[in-house]
């Protein structure tokens, strides 16, 4: 009985120190004590983030062999490699929470772990490569900049590294759009069409309105999340609308208006029905993305087994 009480006190102290650290804005490190809910929340979020980087390689990879110039091909190859690299840092950062990459991949395949909904949309024309870089990476940056101050040390450090590269991606995507808007009528049409298809899904990347997911949740209490979905979405809209105007692209929102009082743009209603339908598996590419990831993983099994068998043989010899 006494022992139990002692234990509980110890536990309280440890948690107390977790809460004190959060209170002081100190980073939580892998060896620190943390509530089970905090660990679970981070594993879910970080593995989802890692999977998103990796699944996002599919729609962009789909255009590498068709890139229209050697320079464009180099930029796209480098970008996709960056994304894969982000996947790697994030898997390693998530591993500090006591889960392996294999387990995370198994969760992705079983549907337990998710990836960003945006990659369930298809990259149909070359302009989509511009739109993805500019809008999708642009939206990702807004979210990731805010996550640089997230409370978990390894996650926050991964975000600092990743953000530097993301801003290149955003600029390169914008450059593609600008070039096309400066090009032939067919190119301008292609660019505007990509804008029309990617604008709303990009806004949905920030998740439901704050009225649906209040600020009072654990993610805020634990300082995993620092800004609300609507705050981040607003930031994205405000910086992006101006960029669109500069190159002559129309934002496909009839209700979009500058609000002089609030000093930001008001936007029209987001189609949450579509959002939920895509999240629940009914997007244009959900099946394709997952089937591809599973197929490649299964096809590579013999290679991974061979590498492991060779490693074990070498270990025995040495």
């Amino acid at each position, binding site marked *: 009985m006494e022992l139990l009480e002692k234990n509980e006190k110890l536990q309280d102290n440890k948690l107390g120190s977790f809460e004190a650290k959060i209170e002081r804005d100190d980073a939580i490190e892998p060896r620190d004590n943390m509530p089970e809910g905090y660990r679970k929340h981070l594993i879910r979020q970080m593995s989802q983030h890692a999977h998103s980087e990796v699944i996002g390689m599919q729609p962009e990879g789909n255009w590498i062999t068709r890139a229209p110039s050697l320079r464009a091909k180099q930029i796209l190859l480098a970008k996709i490699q960056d994304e894969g690299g982000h996947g790697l840092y994030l898997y390693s950062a998530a591993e500090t929470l006591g889960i392996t990459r294999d387990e995370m991949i198994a969760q992705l395949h079983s549907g337990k772990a998710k990836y960003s909904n945006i990659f369930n949309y298809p990259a149909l024309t070359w302009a989509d490569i511009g739109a993805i870089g500019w809008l999708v990476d642009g939206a990702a940056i807004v979210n990731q900049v805010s996550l640089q101050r997230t409370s978990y040390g390894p996650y926050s450090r991964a975000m600092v590294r990743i953000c530097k590269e993301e801003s290149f991606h955003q600029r390169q995507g914008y450059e593609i759009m600008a070039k096309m808007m400066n090009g032939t009528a067919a190119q301008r049409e292609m660019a505007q069409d990509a804008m029309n298809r990617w604008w709303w899904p990009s806004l949905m990347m920030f998740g439901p309105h704050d009225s649906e997911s209040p600020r009072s949740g654990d993610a805020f209490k634990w300082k995993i999340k620092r800004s609300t979905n609507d705050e981040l979405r607003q930031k994205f809209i405000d910086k992006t609308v101006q960029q669109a105007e500069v190159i002559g692209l129309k934002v496909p929102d009839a209700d979009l208006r500058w609000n002089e009082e609030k000093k930001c743009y008001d936007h029209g209603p987001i189609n949450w029905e579509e959002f939920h339908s895509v999240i629940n598996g009914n997007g244009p590419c959900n099946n394709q993305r997952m089937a591809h990831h599973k197929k*490649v993983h299964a*096809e590579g099994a013999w290679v991974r087994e*061979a590498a492991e068998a060779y490693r074990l043989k070498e270990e025995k010899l040495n």
Partner: protein
Amino acid sequence: MTEQQALYKYCLRLGDNALVQSYRLSEWCSNAPTLEEDLALTNFALDMTGRAQALLAYAGEVDGNGKTDDDLAYRRGEREFYNHLINEQPNGDFAHTIARLLYTSTYEYLFYTELMHSADERLASIAAKVVKESRYHMTHANDWAMRLGNGTEESQGRMQAAIDGLWMFTGEMFETDAADALLRDKNIAVDLGKIKIKWMERITEMVKLAGLKMPQGSYMQTGGLKGIHTEYLGHILTEMQYLQRAYPDATW
């Protein structure tokens, strides 16, 4: 054939080899057995794209026809490409890609090491950069050949089938034509006879270390130097050149 024409063709051959390899390596994006390997192979594709750019840009300058690297990559037909057939073969399984990389990166490492001493300064300086990449590609191919050859029964079988299957495309890498002869006299081109001996030694050694048997066939495919390819090249160009061909007035 003038020296200028010979040099133009020589640069196209080297540039086309890089360009076509970059295409095949790019196809591994999101398709490799591990994320690390996905990044490695697409990184090699990136090296190859840069190499193609340097060599095709120089080809355009040598010819003086005002054509850019992109014009030469995206607006030439299949009979005007001079790459070795091995580079356009489909990726096959991972063992095939590694076997091809083993054959070609060993060749390129030896080739560009020699080309660094070319009397043509531009080629020599391109070679100095390429040789570093090739050494890295070769190390990667050797490492995987070791793992696959000495890994499991399945991986060994696949690796043996891969080196055997691609063997008939290796002879072409050492073929020469009138352009080689002319440029050899000026100390611009590489002596492929010399390379061939070293290549065979290295490959024989590596195959043995990987626990595999040297391929036996003596029949060798030919054609790339004359612009006569396997059916695969046409499909590569169809996909690669699609935007440039469909929108000839556009700049990207």
